[in-house]
């Protein structure tokens, strides 16, 4: 059965390497089982203060991060990972309604899953974040004074290279591909995050802020990613 699944999804050896940071060993073990069952390579880490070291050592494609951890809390770990890498971070949280979510997103997490979640839900989130815009076809976009190389995953202002996380890059590309179109938050959630149903629009708000802080000359007065009041966002006039 596992073999069957492998055969269906495998395009090489493994689908991806996932670092699971959670202090609840039963849950991490279960997460490991489910992820491995889906063909991922999972590495477990149960202590907050060891998480960053484990991240460097394991070099995952995605991090599943519990927010409440002994040693060092998830927010801090997320910030440290973000400081050195754009690897997607998905938070596991028991409090979907509190400021924790916003705090987590602001510290750099790409997405979050609220406990208790169904395994399918988690796998869908993980897949959505690890999905890569297929390279090959060369595509370059220009928006304002930014040059975007889509397959190369790079954004440049003149000669200056701007480092974006994959999520921020996807967000910018989605907007820049159709600069004439206003995207609602729901549309962006679907296109960039891969949500089929309505989800938390705070995801969009927080990440647009993060994107702006990197690409805008004056983030307080954005020219590239413009808010359209009552509707959503659009890429500013080139």
């Amino acid at each position, binding site marked *: *059965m596992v073999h069957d699944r492998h055969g269906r999804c495998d395009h090489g050896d493994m689908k991806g390497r996932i670092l699971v940071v959670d202090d*609840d060993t*039963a*849950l991490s073990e*279960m*997460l490991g*089982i*489910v992820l491995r*069952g889906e063909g991922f390579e999972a590495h477990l880490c149960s202590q907050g203060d060891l998480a960053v070291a484990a991240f460097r050592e394991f070099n995952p494609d995605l991090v599943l991060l519990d927010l409440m951890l002994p040693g060092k809390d998830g927010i801090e770990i997320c910030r440290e990972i973000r400081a050195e890498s754009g690897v997607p971070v998905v938070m596991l949280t*028991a*409090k979907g*309604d509190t400021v924790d979510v916003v705090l987590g997103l602001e510290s750099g997490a790409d997405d979050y899953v609220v*406990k*208790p*979640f*169904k*395994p*399918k839900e988690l796998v869908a989130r993980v897949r959505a974040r690890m999905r890569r815009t297929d390279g090959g076809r060369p595509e370059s976009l220009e928006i304002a004074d930014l040059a975007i190389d889509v397959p190369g995953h790079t954004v440049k202002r003149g000669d200056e290279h701007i480092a974006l996380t994959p999520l921020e890059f996807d967000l910018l590309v989605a907007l820049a591909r159709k600069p004439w179109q206003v995207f609602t938050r729901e549309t962006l959630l679907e296109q960039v995050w891969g949500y089929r149903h309505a989800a938390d629009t705070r995801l969009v708000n927080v990440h647009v802020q993060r994107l702006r802080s990197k690409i805008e000359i004056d983030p307080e007065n954005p020219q590239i990613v413009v808010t359209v009041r009552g509707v959503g966002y659009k890429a500013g006039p080139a």
Partner: protein
Amino acid sequence: MAGPVGRVRTRWRSSLYLRVVATTLALSILVVVVLGQVLMGRITSGLLDAKQRASLVEAQAGLNQAQALITAAGEDNAERNQSLEPVAVQLASGGQGTPRLYDVLLLTSSTSLYQRGSSTVTVESVPDDLRSAVENEDVQASTFTEIVYIDGRPPVPGFAVGAPLTVPGLGTAELYYLFPLTQEQQTLDLVRRTLLFAGLVLVLLLGWISWFVTRQVVDPVRYAAAIAEEFSAGHLSERMTVRGEDDLARLARSFNDMAASLELKIGQLEDLSRVQRRFVSDVSHELRTPLTTVRMAADVLHESRDDFDPATARSAELLQTQLDRFEALLSDLLEISRFDAGAATLDVVEGDLHDAITSVVEALLPLAEPTRTRIRIHQASEPATAEFDPRRVDRILRNLLANAIEHSDGQPLDVRVGVSDEAVAVVVRDHGTGLRPGESSLVFNRFWRADPSRVRSIGGTGLGLAIALEDARLHGGWLQAWGAPGDGACFRLTLPRVLGTDISASPLPLEPSDATTERRMPLSVGAGARTPPTGSGVSDDE
């Protein structure tokens, strides 16, 4: 017309100041007037008595003198006639002065001849009564009179003393002494003015004193009232300032003691309820991590159930379905604890209630499928647009409909939408077993079940309607229930079209028109536990 009067009455009733000061003024005016009258009377009579006594003595002396002069004058008639004039003049000279002390008149009525001692007063100054008394009874008499002057000066009050004078050969003459009371009049006028002024000052002073004294009592009372109002408005740390040892200080101390004990009790209750809510929330959160693990484990088992023997496979299935139920219960508990903690917030957009109903009904069709329950939607003729939180309104509708499906016994459901200027409403009507008397107020209680022995087919958490009620209340709307045994039940959700406005009436009646009449009357109990059946909104609890 009634305006100013009404205002005065209100002011009179509401102001202790006004009442006390006005009453004091009225009573003191009365006292001063009576006192003034009595005083004035005493002084007047005292002054006049003294004057009277002095006048009589004076007149007696004059009479004696006149008698002596006349007797000494001899027998000659003509000479006597002549001599009466000088006598009068001589007598009158005793009254010289400014003003004159007295005037003297010497009259002989028998000869109709009269002479004046002093040429300033007229004969009319002597009243007829006095003259006849002196003439006829031949005794000394006296009376008050008005002295009329010849030179046209205004007449003054006076005292007249008359006595018969025996003139040998001529018979009787009458000697009248006229004492003007000008001085006494002036004294009395002065006394009256003084009394009037003193009375006025006294009244004003009393008014001021009463105001001052009232202030000493009323101000602390008003202060106490203000503090008590603050306190009851929720500022539990408000205290009165205790000054001195008097009754007001005692009042302040008692108030403070009461406030302190209330604050303590309320604080304890709040702590208790906070601890409890915190506990519920913590428990729910703590349960989530193990539940996630169990959930995933169950899922893995469930995925592989085909490989198990029938008993184990069924167990995996049961595990899966019951976990769904457990999860629903947990999330409902969390939702309730959020309401209890006051942490629930509205995420409002403008939407059409019809759309919400359509999507919820579509989502619930699988639930209605097993019992072949038909759901009939009766839309309003106009769009039912309102400001609401779609997530919460969807949840209310889902709860109402799921509840109706569960209790409909396969009978069709009616969902009716109503719109008015101020509100939109949706009524969910089932024709199932209905509710027994009194139950319509219980349905919104947590974990309440109409019939504990009844099998739960859909397996709600028992919190659905309680959450729905809280959701409605959060919108400032109503959620009410009606039911009759055997006649089904009816739930009505009324939401204001503009958030934050009060609803005065729902666009739809709560009692369905198809309800059996005789059952309708006693059972049309409105409302959830704390929701008023009519009236302005349900925000009465917070």
